[in-house]
């Protein structure tokens, strides 16, 4: 009995180690003064962060990625709200088919989406820029947003909105005052998921950005130069910290949402 549970414990430990140890190496080498990524560690330094911040291409890539991720997540979530509300509240002809096509990019190989978008955009004569990346990212983020938002909308009693309307509110007022606050945890989850997906997306960004760098494409291009690797490590460290912060915010809002509705926390992020 105890032998078996010890075995499982060891398995779980190894599993977690395999998952997170590489990520722990990032900050380790980001603060290491040696230029080669290898043990033993040399001394402590923050030079790589300074170097990273002093690199104009990297800063441009970072700002591009942030603009793209924020725009794509906001657009995907807004469109997701429309779609999720429509599918959970109304029946209309072709609903299943329409939803199927909207959700398809989730399982479609990204390379196919990226290539076909590139062909269409070039065919239409649209110049490649971060705007085209935003469109592509909105397309691939939307299914995730809809999946999250549909759950939020479908767990909502539809007579709530009717009650608000019955009590004299307008349709928009009923939505704003009742539905929106109640699905807010879902909206925040959708924004965060979309933001994360967009931030580390490589293929579409690589195909559609033209000459503009994004973080993933920039990092990929720099990996060829060993000298750059420590500052890439510093960048990775910043991104990990940022992700943890975002997840923490998301979890905080999720728990607050559940507590306000009087539900029990079932565990699990988002």
């Amino acid at each position: 009995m105890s032998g078996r549970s010890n075995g499982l414990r060891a398995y779980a430990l190894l599993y977690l180690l395999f998952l997170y140890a590489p990520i722990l190496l990032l900050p380790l080498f980001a603060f290491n003064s040696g230029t080669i990524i290898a043990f033993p560690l040399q001394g402590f330094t923050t030079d790589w962060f300074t170097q990273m911040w002093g690199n104009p291409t990297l800063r441009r890539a970072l700002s591009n990625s942030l603009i793209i991720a924020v725009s794509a997540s906001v657009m995907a979530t807004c469109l997701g709200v429309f779609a999720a509300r429509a599918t959970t509240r109304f029946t209309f002809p072709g609903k299943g088919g329409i939803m199927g096509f909207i959700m398809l990019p989730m399982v479609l190989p990204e390379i196919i989406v990226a290539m076909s978008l590139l062909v269409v955009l070039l065919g239409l004569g649209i110049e490649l820029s971060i705007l085209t990346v935003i469109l592509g990212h909105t397309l691939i983020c939307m299914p995730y947003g809809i999946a999250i938002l549909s759950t939020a909308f479908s767990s909502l009693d539809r007579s709530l909105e009717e009650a608000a309307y019955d009590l004299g509110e307008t349709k928009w007022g009923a939505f704003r005052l009742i539905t929106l606050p109640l699905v807010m945890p879902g909206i925040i989850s959708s924004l965060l998921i979309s933001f994360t997906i967009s931030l580390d997306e490589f293929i579409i960004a690589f195909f559609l950005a033209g000459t503009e760098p994004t973080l993933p494409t920039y990092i990929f291009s720099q990996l060829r130069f060993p000298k750059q690797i420590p500052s890439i490590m510093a960048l990775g460290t910043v991104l990990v910290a940022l992700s943890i912060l975002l997840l923490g915010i998301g979890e905080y809002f999720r728990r607050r949402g559940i507590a306000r509705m009087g539900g029990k926390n079932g565990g699990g992020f988002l």
Partner: protein
Amino acid sequence: MIASRDQRPETARPMIECNEIQKYYGDYHALRGIDLVIREGEFFSLLGPSGCGKTTLLRTIAGFEGISSGAVLIDGKHMENVPANSRPTNMVFQSYAIFPHLTVAQNVAFGLRRDPRGKSEKAALVEEALAMVGLRGYGGRAAHALSGGQRQRVALARALILKPKVLLLDEPLSALDRKMREQMQVELIKLQRQVGITFVLVTHDQEEALVMSDRIAVMFDGEIAQLDEPETLYARPKDRRVADFIGVMNFLPAQITREADGIVSVDVPGLGPVELPESQVSRANPDDSGPVLGFRPETMTLLTPGQSSQHARETDVVIDEVVYYGDMTYYDLRLEGTQHTVRISMRNVFGRDVQSVGTKARVAWSPGSLVLFR
């Protein structure tokens, strides 16, 4: 039962008028020509099995559903172009639809958002409404922390604070347990008398409708089968569906022997010949093979040996089954000389013994409590 009925004269002003309402969902004919007048200050119930159109009718009155043809008038005004948020009606939903992210007070005050009155005045109104439903001091509580009965009260306060002309209640008690439901029935009646607002209740529970209503419309398949006061509905159902739906009724095959001068003479195996006036003749179901005689379980009395009855008629029976309920005993009786079994109920009063299975006995009854369905 609560005797509130005779307080409302027949001449009370019509509050809701439904004229020839037809409603289609695609091919489905949900309401088939509803004609209905609900009077001011009345406690009115729409009763029927699920799918009969009662909720659809309530929602057309509320303005949530459009109608295919016909008209709805509330307080004499046409409601055709009046949306739900501008009608003088408020609704208590089946799920109560309490806003879970707001406090009790915020829920109750929700309808006052567009009211120009000041904050303190509104707070006083909220407190008054909460007191009316027995929730004084609950204003600060989170709505999601309330019990089912309390949610119901908040829903009532939230609707009544707007002083609507009509309060619509969609199966408001179906989510409560039995004890709570019976308590709320009485409270609703009291509340309705206190505020004097017209209440329209939708329910599938015939007992609930009988207890609470001044008048009841029984609906089947999108039509009103009968609209009457509870006593009439129970004692003189106009057709067999209504008789089946409300309470328990025994049915025996009957043979019509003579019809003259408004009197129908029938022969019933086990009971013998009976003469019934037209007022005791109702419509049978289309699938009935012939005329059927019906009576309620409590209209026959099981006589103790040697007891004489004040009723006109007596019949020999054999006791087939005895079901003891504490305050009541149900007897399944086989009518002597037939294979027909009927169920009667007897109140267990002091000194009356429960009779045992297999014994021969006599029941007393009177033709005045019979209904013929033909």
